């Protein structure tokens, strides 16, 4: 498991390579990259600043990686979340999941992203052309996270 909170950009390809190493039992690698958009609900975004709770952010993400590892047979997980100021087009977050079979890698990546959105202590403040404002939490994200409480474990054994 690799969990990092950092100001610097990340390199998804390097993270995947480091996670695979010389293993030959991995059949499926899913990566999710979240990117800063130039508009949010139609409002232009010139930049955003991501604030976080140092210590708790790492701990909270690690707890959810441990839960993902308990739910699905994963062979590697990397989560990197940036903080600080970002402009549209900048990468914000990376999740990499690896498994023998694709269903498990997809499910774990979605699970981790849904939890990052709703439980990891990060807050976005967007700068518009004239003003800046804190992003409000979305009901959609809470709904997306809630489905994992009801749903079971592994989704199948497709590879």
């Amino acid at each position, binding site marked *: 498991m690799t969990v990092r909170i950092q100001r610097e950009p990340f390199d998804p390809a390097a993270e995947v390579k480091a996670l695979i190493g010389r293993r030959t039992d991995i059949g499926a690698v899913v990566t999710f990259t979240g990117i800063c958009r130039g508009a949010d609900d139609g409002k232009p975004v010139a930049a955003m600043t991501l604030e976080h*709770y140092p*210590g708790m952010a790492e701990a909270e993400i690690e707890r959810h990686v441990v839960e993902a590892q308990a739910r699905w047979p994963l062979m590697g997980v990397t989560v990197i*979340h940036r903080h600080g100021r970002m402009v549209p087009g900048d990468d*914000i*977050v990376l999740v990499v999941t690896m498994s023998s079979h694709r269903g498990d890698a997809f499910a774990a990546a979605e699970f981790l992203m849904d939890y990052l959105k709703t*439980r990891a*202590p990060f*807050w976005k403040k967007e700068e518009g052309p004239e003003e800046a404002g804190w992003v409000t939490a979305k009901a959609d994200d809470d709904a997306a996270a809630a489905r994992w409480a009801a749903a079971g474990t592994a989704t199948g054994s497709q590879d």
Partner: protein
Amino acid sequence: MKILYFAWVRERVGKAEETVEPPAGVATVADLMEWLAGRDEAYAYAFENRRVIRAALDQTHARPEAAIAGAREIAFFPPMTGG
């Protein structure tokens, strides 16, 4: 006990952290928010809509009814918007 504030809670309170000694009757997270809200106008503004504010006790999410006894670090913040 040490208290941390994040995002607009931090901006409204006007500081990122402080150490406070609440009186004996302040037993839960909700009690602490109510006590803080009564300190001055900045705190009142920060905690005016307490239902939306989330809390963490020693870096773990905590509900309003959670007891604060023994906690070393309590944080208050808006709903998370990371990812």
